[in-house]
């Protein structure tokens, strides 16, 4: 019986892969707003629909669950393999480019308090807040907590959000920041490399448009963005593993405790 369950899961997985890849990348554009859907997202949706149709039962879910953690290691190798060839770029980058990489972690102190204090999120907040939740983050959470854990739900939800809204959001954000004049265009260019190629292009687009007639400035802007992108794709994995996740966990514990403390006092007061 156990083997039967296993084969059902494997054959279903193969059928889902084939169906998802046959649909292929789908680009949607509504005026200024555009996004691309990827096969991996259809695989999730097909799974949810088949569950709704009761094709997938609890036994199959329990069989498939540990397979996620094993198969996700392929992602680790693929992401890790791009780091080695990029090491020289890190050696040659200037101080501004190197230090701004730390800025990628600043988000933890910005989004985690909102997640925990405003939305009262649980451990899913850790998964959603330690990074911008691209493929490398899926690999990290999949390995450390499992993609079907609370943390996994957070990172997957944020991954889907990023796929659907990331490019639009980045373009709007950089356009707005350009109007405010708070930052030099070089700083905005350096910040554009956050580890996602599509989000970088989206963040870069408003800058390219604004400085189209200043070729010297434009080439610097593009070089800064590209280098920052290479740096993030190289250090992002380790930054998340050694700094992002531990700091997020630490802050999560602090926030939960601070929130719990007054309530406990009230109980003790009675």
């Amino acid at each position: 019986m156990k083997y039967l369950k296993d084969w059902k899961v494997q054959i279903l997985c193969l059928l889902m892969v084939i169906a998802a890849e046959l649909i292929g990348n789908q680009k949607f554009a509504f005026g200024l707003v555009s996004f691309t859907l990827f096969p991996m997202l259809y695989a999730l949706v097909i799974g949810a629909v088949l569950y709704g149709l009761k094709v997938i039962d609890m036994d199959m879910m329990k069989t498939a669950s540990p397979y996620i953690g094993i198969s996700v290691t392929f992602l680790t190798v693929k992401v890790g393999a791009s780091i080695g060839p990029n090491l020289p770029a890190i050696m040659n980058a200037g101080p501004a480019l190197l230090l701004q990489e730390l800025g990628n972690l600043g988000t933890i102190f910005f989004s985690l308090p909102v997640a925990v204090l405003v939305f009262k999120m649980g451990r899913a907040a850790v998964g959603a807040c330690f990074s911008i939740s691209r493929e490398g983050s899926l690999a990290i959470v999949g390995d450390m907590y499992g993609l079907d854990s609370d943390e996994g739900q957070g990172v997957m939800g944020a991954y889907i959000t990023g796929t659907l809204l990331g490019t639009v959001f980045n373009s709007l954000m950089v356009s707005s920041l350009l109007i405010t004049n708070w930052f030099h265009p070089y700083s905005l260019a350096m910040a554009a490399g956050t580890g996602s190629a599509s989000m970088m292009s989206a963040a870069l687009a408003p800058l390219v448009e604004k400085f189209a007639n200043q070729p010297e400035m434009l080439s610097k802007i593009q070089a800064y963005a590209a280098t920052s992108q290479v740096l993030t794709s190289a250090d992002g994995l380790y930054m998340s593993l050694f700094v992002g996740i531990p700091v997020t966990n630490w802050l999560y514990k602090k926030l939960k405790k601070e929130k719990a403390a007054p309530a406990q006092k009230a109980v003790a007061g009675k």
Partner: protein
Amino acid sequence: MEGKWFTRIKILLITALFASIGNLINGLVTKSRSATPEKVMVYMPWQIWPALALMIAIIILGLIIADFAKAKFPKADLPNILFISAIAILVGIPNLSPLATFMKTEFAKIGLLPLCTPILSYAGISIGKDLPAFKKQGVAIVTVALLTFLGTYIGSALIAEIVLKFTGQI
């Protein structure tokens, strides 16, 4: 009861097989829709098996070291990804690793996204038991994810601005 290693190797081989089939379909679909189809490379499943074999070798070596390290330091809570990625990086360093060139050319034949599809299919099969919780947190996760993009960007821009000013570049 299947042993730990039996399950690991079984799933690694099956995932690789599914990814190689998905990669072919992905290539064919992309080619058929491309404005410049002659530029889209399509690889047969067996053409990417050298890459997949090297990936599996790196994963297995990484897992062996990870198991050993976990047995030696049970309190350290060391994730597998630490060891697997470290080996992947070492193998990919040009002028240091004899496999660096092989890795770069072979790994390019399999896309990151087709590699994700079988993983997310397993996740899709087991998503049912998490759907209620997922639904409940939907709006919160979307808002928090967007705040994360904003925070990441502003954080980097702020540091870049300060350092560029400090070093007199702007």
